[in-house]
Structures are given as C-alpha cells and as structure tokens.
C-alpha cells in the first residue's frame, strides 16, 4: 500500500508521457486513397477538361500529393492533357534570417504559361498559411493567373496566422500547437498514412 502510494506519481508521470507520445492515425492507407479519389472528382467537377487549368505542387512535401492527384486524374481522364508543375518557395519565405534554420532550395519546374489560367496549388498540410502566402508570391513571378485555388490533404484549423483558406480539403482536423501532423507517403516512407503525434 505504502509502496503503491510512493510509486503512483511516478506511474502517473509515465502513463501521461506514454499517452502523449502515442501516435494517432487520422487517415490510413485506404482512406488516403479514397480521399485522393474524392479530391480528383471535385477537381473534375470544377475544371472539366483542364484546358484552362494548371496544377502546381508545392516543394518539398506537397509533391507527393500532387503527383498522386496528377496520376489519378490521368487515369480518370484518359487522353486529356493536364499541365502539371512544381514550385519551390524557399526564396519567398518570410522567415529568412529570423532565427530559423536555413532551407535548402528544391527544383522549380513550370514549363508552361500560367497567364490567364486557373491555378490549383497543392500541398499536404495547411497550417499557419505562411507557406501558401509564399507560394502565391512565387507563383506570381511566372505570370498572372485568372484565378488561384488551394487544395490540401489536411487542414489544421485554429492555427492560421494569415487569412488563407483551402478550396478543396481532404480532412479537417483540430490539433493543438504542440502536436505534429505527419503525412507519410508510400514512395518515401513505405506506406500511406496521416498521423498526429
């Protein structure tokens, strides 16, 4: 009994640590596939034949989602040409020299004109909105699109620092600041999964 009383705070402490470090799955492999399919259908609903639309994935992590969406759209619309590019936002970040780690830039590959086109920006997680803001800046250096939309797999509510919202959302979640949302992709991590830790 005495022993138990002495030990209980210790046990409690470890119990909570364990609980805090438990990974929670938000989307498993099948759900990711269903969600990507649904997002593709929503895109087709709004853009039909993609003749006036271009898709742009954001480096580095949005590329896996964008690749997946592009491949699925190709399957759903055989024979239709879809412009798909990748945009790196490193040089447009607003935290350069603000005490954060220096980012190594990735490749930007946009070999078509975005002038007067509808642009769909794609990223894995929408969090503070700052990446999207940088992406808008970076994108405007390539021309003036007629409209810009945002597609994200995960929308973290309550943590936005800028007035930016997604037009297409895979899943909306509520997570506190200390939690991390991780999107895993088969191509890089061996399985498709979205977890919170």
């Amino acid at each position, binding site marked *: 009994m005495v022993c138990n009383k002495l030990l209980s705070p210790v046990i409690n402490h470890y119990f909570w640590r364990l609980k805090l470090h438990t990974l929670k799955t938000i989307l498993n492999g099948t759900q990711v596939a269903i969600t990507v399919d649904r997002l593709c259908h929503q895109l087709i609903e709004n853009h039909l034949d993609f003749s006036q639309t271009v898709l742009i994935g954001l480096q580095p992590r949005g590329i896996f989602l964008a690749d997946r969406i592009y491949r699925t759209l190709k399957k759903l619309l055989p024979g239709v040409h879809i412009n798909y590019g990748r945009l790196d936002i490193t040089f447009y970040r607003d935290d350069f*020299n603000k005490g954060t780690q220096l980012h190594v830039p990735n*490749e930007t590959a946009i070999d078509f004109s975005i002038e007067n086109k509808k642009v769909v920006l794609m990223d894995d997680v929408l969090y503070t909105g700052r990446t999207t803001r940088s992406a808008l800046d970076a994108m405007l*250096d390539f021309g003036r699109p007629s409209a810009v939309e945002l597609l994200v797999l995960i929308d973290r509510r309550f943590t936005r620092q800028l007035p930016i919202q997604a037009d297409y959302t895979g899943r909306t979640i509520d997570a506190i600041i200390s939690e991390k949302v991780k999107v895993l992709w088969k191509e890089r991590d061996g399985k498709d999964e979205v977890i919170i830790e």
Partner: protein
Amino acid sequence: MSLSVNHLLGIRNLKRQDIELIFQTADTFKGVLQRPIKKVPTLRDTTIVNLFFENSTRTRISFELAEKRLGADVVNFSASGSSVSKGETLIDTVNNILSMKVDMVVMRHSASGAPHFLSKHIQVPIVNAGDGINEHPTQALLDAFSIRERLGSVEGKKVAICGDIMHSRVALSNIYCLRELGAEVTVVGPPTLIPKHMAEALGVNVSYNIREALEWCDVANVLRIQLERQNTPLFSSLREYSLAYGVNRALLDSLKKDIVIMHPGPINRGVELSSDVADSGHSIILNQVENGVAIRMAVLYLLAGKKPEQVG
C-alpha cells in the same frame, strides 16, 4: 543545412560539403535566372556594400547583379575618387560604411589577406572578391560549377591550369577547389611563372610543356598574363610567350581528343588564347560568366542566411 564558415575568405577554409551545398543552391538560382522575372525577394531587408579597391569588370557586375536579383540593396564603392586617396585606413573606411547599417561586405583588394584581416575586426559577413595573389573563391566555384555542368561531375576529371600561376589568385583558388572535389590538377607554364615546391605543397602535377598538358587533360583553364603584378621581367616578350604557351586552333586540332577551354577573363586575345579558340565550341568562357551570377547568388544567400548569433 548551412555553411561551416561565416565569411567566404577563400576556398582553403571550405569543406567539400560546403562546396556541394553552394552548387546545389546555385542550381536553383540558375533556374531563377531563366525565368521571365529573374528576381526573388529573399534579401530584401539586406544591404550589401561592394568595396572594390582594385579594378574589376566581370566580378563587380556579376556581384551587383547577383545582389539585385536577390532583392538586396546595393552600395558600390571604388577606391579611386574616395577618401582612401586622402589616407584613410582600411578599417576606418569599412567601419564608417558599416555604421550606416550595412549587412554584408563584398571586397576586392590588391593586398593578399586584406579580407582576412578585416574579418577579425568587423561583425558582418565578408565575401572575398579577390585579394592580391592569394585567392578568388567565387571564380574557382564558378569554374568548378561550369566543369560540373559541361562534363557531369568534377570528381576524377583532369584539369590543366595554364599560364601565369605565380601571380594568379584564380589558380590558387581553383587548385584548392578542384582538389577538394576530387579532380586531378596539372599546372603548366614557363618555369619562371610557376612557384617552387608547388607540387609538394598543393598536390598538383607541374609541367613546362603546354602540348603535353593539353594532351593529358579534359579541361584547360587558361589564365591571363598579369603584367601589372610582375615587377621584374619573367619572360622575354609577350610574342615569345604566345609562341611557346599560347593556346591556338592549330594546337587544339593536333590533339588526339576534344578538350574544354576555360578562361577567367579578361582575355588578352592573341597572347594566351587565340580568338579562333576563345570563340569556338570548345570554349565555355561565356557559360562561366553566366554561371558566375548564380554562384554568387548562392554564396550571398547562404552567408546572409546564417543565424545572427553564428556570425562573428
């Protein structure tokens, strides 16, 4: 990822991963320079002063363009027409400029070691744009970057550095850079223009025969004869130098293979390099100049992006 140094004083202080990081960053800046809008806003809150105590065309314009393409504010300074001619010391000049809230210094000076000396006295990053006969790090970086672009990699390649080795900061920086990246280097020129003990000190081969060196190499980096740094005559005449060590069409055609020709500029046409070689398909001289802007953007970006407490 960041550089292991706070200033770019010379290639001697860089590690291989630093050089590779600069190349990787320069690759993306090269992409930026191909766009309709060749400018990014990264350094919009940074002011950079270009201190040129010695003449320059390419390097100065290249640095200024790199700074402007990164969105930085640029101040230019040249020694002629400044208070330097009234007797102001280097530290005083620089401190006066820095007190006007300048964040970075790009510096060329005719005294070897001038930027190294300055780096001990000021708190902002310094980029060496050439100091006397010591180093010219951004030139070596853009040279190696151009070789990598043309031949796929630098590792294992054979590079001949031809001409006035003794007075060339380009040669010394190139040797450090190419050796660090795993290339083989031969220096070739008249014995009077190659310092003694070069082979042992820097791990390069020494040759006095230009034909042999060109036959051996994949890339020939031909240097300018720096008459302004030669106090005593080291060869009898420019004409004789050109006959013995000049690279011309006939010499290139007589080789068993095609080699790449480089030159850091300015070219003395008809002395170290003939016009028909400088303007031929072998030459990547203008690619070097083009790559210079991307390399300098990468260097400025990586140095400016170091955390404030790391600089000092």
